[in-house]
């Protein structure tokens, strides 16, 4: 370890900076959480106060529960997010493997074409997508969302994963071929475990935008039975009256699943970000 890192002042300073940043980042989340447990009056009287015996109230959560469909929204969000991530990772990794591993005509062109999606936001095509979904009868189904999010996530996934797949040693894949593994087995059993950190990185980058998205659920699947959590929470926000208790409670609960998914991926993610940088 070098000297600068052992110096107590430096240790203190770096921790102070990190702690400050953590506080700033967590503050909005904290405010949402405490206010979700307060009465409506208390929220507006002292938004930063902790809930006391006076102001404590579960009215927001009760409203959300009473709305009844909330669990359905929750389930919809979960299905859409998990399914989209699954397809993004599966197809992204497969395309990346093909681009990284096989010599074929138009390889570079294909790679560029797939990367083009990084530069062009998918929302530009909203009208065309809606048109397509209407003609295929997929409007107001979760499949509409899953397909769109998969398309949205693929370019970056292919781009990141093909870079990582190129680093997997050729000898290893060849050893697999000599041992009689099929190309699919080589992909699933040898290559995928080695690019796991990269997969986690891609998963996290894709997960949060999908979970939070309001645009496509609103346009493609606004029906009651296919509403996602973000869209469902909008019920409580009116043009003139907003049920803040319910909104804050709904948002507090919406944080949970993303946090759980994040914890699952985060260990891998950190390795993904630092791999190559430290070696």
């Amino acid at each position, binding site marked *: 370890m070098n000297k600068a890192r052992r110096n107590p002042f430096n240790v203190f300073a770096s921790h102070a900076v990190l702690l400050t940043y953590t506080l700033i980042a967590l503050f909005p989340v904290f405010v949402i959480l405490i206010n979700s447990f307060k009465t409506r009056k208390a929220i507006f009287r002292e938004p930063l106060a902790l809930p006391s015996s006076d102001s404590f109230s579960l009215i927001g959560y009760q409203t959300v529960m009473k709305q009844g469909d909330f669990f359905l929204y929750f389930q919809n969000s979960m299905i859409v997010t998990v399914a989209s991530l699954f397809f993004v990772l599966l197809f992204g990794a497969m395309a990346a493997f093909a681009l990284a591993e096989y010599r074929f005509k138009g390889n570079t062109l294909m790679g560029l074409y797939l990367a083009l999606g990084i530069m062009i936001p998918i929302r530009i095509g909203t009208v065309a997508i809606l048109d397509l979904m209407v003609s295929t009868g997929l409007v107001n189904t979760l499949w509409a969302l899953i397909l769109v999010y998969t398309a949205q996530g693929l370019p970056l996934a292919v781009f990141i994963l093909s870079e990582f797949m190129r680093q997997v*040693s050729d*000898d*290893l894949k*060849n*050893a*697999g*071929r*000599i*041992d*009689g*593994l099929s190309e699919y087995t080589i992909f699933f059993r*040898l290559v995928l*475990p*080695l690019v796991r950190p990269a997969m986690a990185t891609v998963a996290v980058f894709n997960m949060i935008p999908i979970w939070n998205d309001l645009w496509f659920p609103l346009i493609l699947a606004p029906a009651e039975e296919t509403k996602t959590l973000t869209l469902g929470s909008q019920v409580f926000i009116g043009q003139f009256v907003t049920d803040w208790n319910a909104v804050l409670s709904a948002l507090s609960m919406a944080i949970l699943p993303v946090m759980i998914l994040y914890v699952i991926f985060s260990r891998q993610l950190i390795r993904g970000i630092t791999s190559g940088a430290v070696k």
Partner: protein
Amino acid sequence: MTALILKNVCKSFGQVEVLKNIDLEVEEGEFVVFVGPSGCGKSTLLRVIAGLEDATSGTIEIDGKVVNQTPPAKRGIAMVFQSYALYPHLTVKDNMTLALKQEKQPKNEIEERVRNASQMLALTDYLDRRPSELSGGQRQRVAIGRAIVREPKLFLFDEPLSNLDAALRMNTRIEIANLHRSLDASMIYVTHDQTEAMTLASKIVVLRDGMVEQVGSPMELYNNPANQFVAGFLGSPSMNFIPAATVGGSPEHTLGVRPEYLRINGAGRLDAKVSHVEKLGGDTNVLVDVAGANTMTVRLFGQHPVETGEQIALDFDDKDTFLFDAGGRRV
């Protein structure tokens, strides 16, 4: 039976011809070493034999069957890679048994083969470890073990020792030689190190620019090189070349003489100035600048009191020299 026959094998990547009309036969039980400078196509040739690259033209015959269209796993070969290429998430035992499981060998047969191989390679205590928990030498032994358990008709080694340090390299070299003796299998071994080639091979194939320069036993190539390239490539320190005119020969010819056949002799034919001395204890290598020629190396056995800057004269017997024409061919 002939273990491997290559007929007119060519390989090109786009416009670049990497292998040009390779003809070669490997007899059963032979230890053949492909040697050559980097980029000469020796690894590509090995990969073509393994089936990891397709030959552009020509036929490859292993154990009497043409295998051009056969996938690597069905060619009856096993390969050991320079980077070991062990499966990092599998234990030593799983690394060794993966191919057998793919072949659907019966369980007791697999156990038996793993037991034999791990005893032969002193790996019995490490069967449950992951490759990351092993040293470089152990990893290389696992890679060799993975090849042995398959009981292939032909072993392929792709520079297996270049990632090991000098001491370990020597030990592993001897192990591989012993292995060849005890298995009595046909082996093909690729290296750029001429010492490995000389010590291991029963037959050396010298390659340059995708062409076979010469094929023969180590001593044949050493004593009777076909051209200047082979003469200079084999032997360490390498052969000295001087214009034959320096010692009264034809001006078109180059004269080659090995360092061990040069003598320091007051009445010698070549005047030289010592530019560097390497004292190795058992040997003394003297590098000299010869008037009208390049730097030459003299290898003296034992210890000699030669100092840098000294003026000396060199001599040699004409029977120990080789003559090459302008194109590098032996005269």
